[in-house]
């Protein structure tokens, strides 16, 4: 995926429909995510999330129950969030049997999404690792090179 910043996943002992409700129902969202969630889970819907004394607008991108849910955030105040000025958070739910779900979250962003497709493909081929892994690797190479 182009511009992949971070990718994390967790295996949950619950069916995919239950996990879907947990990540998309606002009263549930406020328990794991923001302090206050004002959001209709519909493609294109604009909402708001509040974290302590901070908060920001959110725009829902994809709602494909019970498999995929994504939204954009971190865009400059007063601007419409589009690829290029915002971060895309995407949840992917994959059932593993009847009672288990693999939940994956990726956060990606910025101008990368506006790249030409060939470039994106090259990126995907060359760099499967997320930025965190990439930076970890660089840091470890560096520390080996410069002991102490």
């Amino acid at each position, binding site marked *: 995926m182009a*511009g992949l*910043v*971070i990718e*994390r*996943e*967790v295996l*949950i*002992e*619950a*069916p995919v429909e*239950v*996990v879907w*409700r*947990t*990540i998309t129902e606002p009263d*549930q969202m406020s*328990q*794991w*995510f923001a302090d206050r969630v004002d959001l209709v889970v519909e493609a294109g819907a604009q909402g708001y999330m509040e974290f302590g004394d901070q908060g920001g607008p959110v725009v829902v991108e994809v709602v494909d129950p019970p498999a995929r849910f994504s939204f954009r955030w*971190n865009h400059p105040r007063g601007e419409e969030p589009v690829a290029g000025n915002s*971060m895309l958070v995407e949840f992917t739910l994959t059932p593993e049997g009847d*009672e288990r*779900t693999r*939940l994956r*979250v990726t*956060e990606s*962003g*910025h*101008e*990368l999404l506006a790249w030409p497709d060939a*470039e994106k493909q*090259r*990126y995907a081929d*060359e*760099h499967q690792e997320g*930025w*965190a892994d*990439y*930076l*970890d690797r*660089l*840091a470890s*190479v*560096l520390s080996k*090179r*410069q002991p102490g």
Partner: protein
Amino acid sequence: MTAQTDDELWSAIADPSRRRVLDLLVSNSEVSASWLAGRVPFTRQAVSKHLVVLERAGLISRRKQGREVLYQVQAGRLDQATRAMAQLAAQWDRQLAAIKRLAEAAHAEDKKRNHHDR
């Protein structure tokens, strides 16, 4: 992730060609643009452009030695970036763990209810 300086940093490391240049700089101490150009599948001109972006993001610095300009990684900046990413990863891990708890509790509740209904 919202700070302007971070934006510069993230876009600097987002480009695959720049990552390749940065990889080379990380595993070699001080090198010139021509040395780098001999080791990547793109032009010397492209290498120079990437070096400018990396330098602007604070990830590398340059030094003149005789007629050559040598580039090297700024370990502090790289470390700062690594920590910022680790924090973001840890934050998502906490959130995923909370989702797991909530979903598993809801599932247990559903099962109990179905059992009673039966």
